[in-house]
């Protein structure tokens, strides 16, 4: 990531990652798939969980479990402290100014829906525009289309070039006084392209637009600083950050969250309720109706602690080394074409093989213990733009090794042999 997108850069000396030690933290790697060691190259879909996260869940359920925010007994008070402690952790992790800017949701999808529904319904009118990019995940397309249907606003799409890079000039040309919000990914899940937010966000702001960043693919790869980015909303999923499923975060600038109506109604998000009238709790509780995924949030806290102990700068460095190694190895395969060759990329490689459908490649790879994603990656409009029905996607993370890349290459060669 560029220096302005992330507070860390790789200029200073960073000690290398002890990948073997990290792998021992992930119990999943002790199992085999179809009789072979697991080569897991689908972290972009969801990350495996370290022992530290699994233990945090176990420990909470075994000896710390209670509902939060309401018990007068010790156990509930302890659970509340731990849950709210993760809010502080996430605030620090994202560089947010205030802990109240952290709203717990189920995942990035829910975070974006919250903004589209609550902020969008209150602020958008007929003729207003929402600007997204051509490489959004369905989660950052469909909620806005639904908003357009409700209020009569219009969805506009900033194009990408053939390398899978957002065209800043074309993006800027689409900004206007009708642009009320820019909703854009930080890192493309399908291509790995890193969006130059430091160029995009000031331009959007100068047109008075709000900016929501879908950070689901970005937070596991490099340090994110929402204050430095200058975005209004930032969404991510805990499960892609080595945390449990069901934990997710919406960051929102405090004055904006305060001016946004509630999302779901129910317990925990109220101040007083009578049959005539309800007043709402202050943020962030206003957006956290009902019992949240308490254990999931506690597990997310453990995941962030784990990553910070390792150091996101070291993870970023290792992943870029893997990306370089894998790109070179894959480019050497005749008939293989990498889809998405942005100059600034996270450790995600989408590719197609001439004459072999991605699903057949996926099956052949699975047979050899190599787990990849094959399909449209929840980005059907992007596949249309790229002119491919689907791609194979290999994504690399802190626990992947160069041997994993070698196994991928060997498995691809088997596919080529089978379909020769």
């Amino acid at each position, binding site marked *: 990531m560029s220096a302005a997108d992330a507070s860390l850069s790789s200029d200073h000396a960073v000690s290398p990652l002890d990948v073997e030690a990290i792998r021992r933290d992930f119990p999943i790697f002790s199992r085999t798939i179809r009789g072979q060691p697991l080569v897991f190259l689908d972290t972009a879909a969801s990350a495996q969980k370290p022992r530290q996260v699994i233990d945090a869940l176990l420990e909470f359920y075994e000896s710390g479990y209670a509902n939060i925010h309401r018990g007068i007994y010790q156990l509930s008070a302890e659970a509340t402290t731990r849950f709210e402690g993760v809010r502080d952790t996430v605030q620090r992790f994202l560089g947010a100014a205030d802990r109240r800017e952290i709203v717990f949701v189920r995942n990035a999808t829910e975070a974006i829906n919250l903004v589209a529904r609550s902020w969008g319904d209150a602020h958008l009118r007929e003729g207003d525009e929402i600007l997204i990019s051509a490489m959004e995940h369905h989660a950052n397309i469909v909620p806005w289309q639904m908003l357009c249907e409700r209020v009569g606003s219009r969805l506009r799409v900033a194009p990408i070039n053939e390398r899978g890079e957002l065209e800043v000039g074309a993006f800027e040309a689409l900004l206007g006084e009708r642009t009320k919000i820019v909703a854009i990914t930080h890192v493309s899940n399908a291509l790995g392209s890193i969006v130059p937010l430091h160029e995009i966000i000031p331009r959007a702001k100068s047109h008075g637009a709000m900016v929501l960043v879908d950070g689901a693919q970005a937070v596991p790869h490099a340090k994110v600083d929402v204050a430095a980015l200058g975005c209004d909303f930032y969404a991510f999923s805990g499960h892609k950050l080595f945390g449990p499923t069901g934990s997710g975060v919406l960051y929102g600038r405090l004055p904006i969250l305060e001016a946004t109506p509630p999302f779901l109604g129910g317990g925990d998000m109220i101040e007083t309720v009578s049959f005539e009238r309800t007043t709402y709790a202050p943020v962030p509780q206003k957006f956290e109706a009902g019992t949240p995924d308490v254990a999931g949030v506690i597990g997310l806290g453990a995941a962030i602690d784990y990553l910070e102990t390792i150091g996101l700068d070291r993870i970023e460095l290792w992943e870029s080394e893997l990306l370089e190694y894998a790109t070179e190895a894959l480019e050497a395969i005749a008939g293989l074409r990498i889809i998405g060759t942005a100059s600034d990329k996270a450790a995600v490689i989408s590719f197609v093989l001439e004459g072999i459908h991605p699903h057949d490649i996926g*099956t052949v790879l699975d047979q050899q213990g190599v787990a990849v994603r094959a399909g449209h990656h929840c980005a059907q409009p992007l596949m249309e733009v790229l002119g491919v029905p689907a791609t194979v996607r290999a994504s690399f993370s802190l626990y992947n090794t160069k041997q994993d890349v070698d196994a991928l290459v060997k498995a691809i060669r088997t596919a080529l042999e089978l379909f020769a």
Partner: protein
Amino acid sequence: MNELRELYQATILDHNKKPRNFCELEDANRTADGHNPLCGDKLTLYLKVDAEDRVVDVGFQGSGCAISTASASLMTEFVKGKKRGEIEEDFIRFQELVTTGAGEAAGVETLGKLAVFSGVREYPMRVKCATLSWHTLRAALENTGATARTE
């Protein structure tokens, strides 16, 4: 590699490379589209059906994985000249073959070359690839004009 060859039998690889009846029928009187939203596999089936509900000619177009392309290709060969009622029985038998394997007991020999798809049942994620063309065929015969979907 052996397990892979169980799934991707030579007949399947051959029909994937050179799909038979891969054409639009100009005189088709029934057509249907099939779509597997999960994979992006798409196909259009063209049928010429006579007054006795017999498929006298059939063609298909589209793009998909080897399993779905070969399945469509072999299906077109298999159903040509058959009546709707017979095809319905074949459909059920084929579906059993690629899911539970029960089709084997219930007379796999009647499926002829289609038996090459028996390996699919080891790969539940791929069953929809094998059956897409059959769902589309059923939709065409019902002539509802709806797109057949595997989801």
